[in-house]
């Protein structure tokens, strides 16, 4: 790699022997108290970081969903050579480590990379791309699975009724709406909780590309526990809310539609 951004070294606490002060029970409870206080008074710094996190991850989910849902559905229904291999690869990509995605997107966007001309490395746009790449396999693989299951069940009936490809696709999507929303919620959870990819392509620049996870990593290593804890609590609440939402969705679907 020829191009090596100097800024990265300044921003990331890599290799710096930062030694956080030893945390005692006392400092911990103090930190918790301060964290709560920050949340309660809607600390502007905390809010700014949370807002950027939401913006980046929501954008990534929208982009990834628009591409991955049709892709997964097509993979479930279409027959072509090499489809099984593609499905295996897609399923393998489910366990893709975020840092590897970050590295790949970094190489693509770095000045010497194929998309270097865009000049978006270390911007929120790069973080959106990295998270979208990260969750694309998740959405596509799970959507493929649920569409394939439903298609096995419905194909003959839909053919028998004379439904063409378009009518069949809409019927399928409509019937799967709850499980597809659940998949998208899970993808959003993975995106917003991920740290490796946004750290690498965003650079964790204060006030510009610093999101919850990268801020937590940095503040913890600096020993600023209250901000780290406050962000951690917000992140936990978001992930919890997503899971509760997904659960309620499933319950509702079961109850109303069998």
């Amino acid at each position: 790699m020829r191009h090596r951004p100097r800024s990265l070294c300044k921003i990331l606490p890599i290799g710096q022997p930062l030694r956080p002060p030893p945390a005692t029970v006392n400092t911990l409870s103090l930190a918790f108290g301060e964290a709560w206080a920050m949340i309660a008074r809607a600390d502007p710094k905390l809010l700014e970081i949370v807002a950027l996190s939401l913006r980046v991850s929501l954008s990534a989910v929208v982009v990834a969903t628009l591409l991955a849902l049709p892709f997964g559905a097509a993979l479930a229904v279409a027959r072509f050579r090499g489809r099984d291999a593609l499905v295996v690869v897609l399923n393998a990509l489910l366990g893709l480590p975020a840092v590897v995605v970050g590295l790949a997107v970094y190489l693509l966007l770095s000045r010497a990379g194929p998309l270097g001309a865009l000049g978006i490395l270390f911007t929120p746009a790069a973080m959106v791309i990295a998270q979208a790449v990260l969750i694309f396999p998740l959405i596509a693989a799970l959507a493929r699975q649920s569409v394939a299951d439903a298609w096995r069940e419905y194909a003959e009936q839909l053919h028998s009724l004379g439904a063409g490809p378009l009518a069949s696709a809409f019927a399928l999507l409509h019937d799967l709406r709850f499980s597809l929303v659940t998949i998208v919620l899970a993808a959003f959870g993975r995106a917003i909780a991920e740290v490796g990819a946004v750290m690498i392509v965003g650079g964790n620049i204060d006030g510009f590309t610093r999101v919850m996870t990268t801020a937590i990593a940095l503040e913890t290593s600096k020993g600023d526990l209250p901000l780290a804890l406050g962000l951690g609590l917000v992140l936990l609440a978001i992930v919890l809310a997503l899971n509760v939402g997904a659960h309620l969705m499933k319950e509702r679907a079961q109850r109303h539609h069998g």
Partner: protein
Amino acid sequence: MADASAPLLPLVLENVGFAAGGRTILAGIDLRIEPGPRTVIIGPNGAGKSVLMRIMHGLLAPTSGTLRWANPERRGEPRRQAMVFQRPVLLRRSVLGNLLFALAVAGVRSHEREARARAALDRVGLGTFADRPARVLSGGEQQRLALARARMLRPQVLFLDEPTANLDPGATREIESVVQSIHDSGTKIVMITHNLGQARRLGDEILFVDRGRIAERSDVDRFFRHPATAEADAFLKGELPWH
């Protein structure tokens, strides 16, 4: 171009065969299905009855031989035949919604759909179920709904694959009376069943399928009194040990 109400029947199968995975499932099927008499297909498990019906309905392509309708259906035109499966497949929407979907696919104009769907529900006694989710109906109710859906489309030919398997005697009678009234309205009935009493009640002619071939075809009384083949005789004795 044939218009959408041109008669489908007769259906002629010539030397139709079906093989899959190196196994011959159907072979040398020569068959002519005429309008009118109710055709009941019986035969042992795995004989190939369902595969034969799927081929006739166009869900499977035969791997050999030819199948010809008098005026075949064309792509994009509403279907003139319908099928009721052993396990009804209903969409995750209301009972009424399932019927409206089928009517939309069949190209029925939107302002006519609801009245037609509700009338179809009333005729199978599901009028008060219109707004319930279809998937939570009981097995018998789901099968009645599937039958209402098929009838509502006014097909010229209706295929039924064991429509009363898993239903209690009461539900079975209900289904049978609906099938009877569909026959009375002029629709050709082709039905598979393992219920020999039902074959007698509903059938005019019997197609006996055994090991991938049509072993015997005769009218219902003669078949049950004097089966012409040893296979049919053994089948009837196995099914009705008290005979």
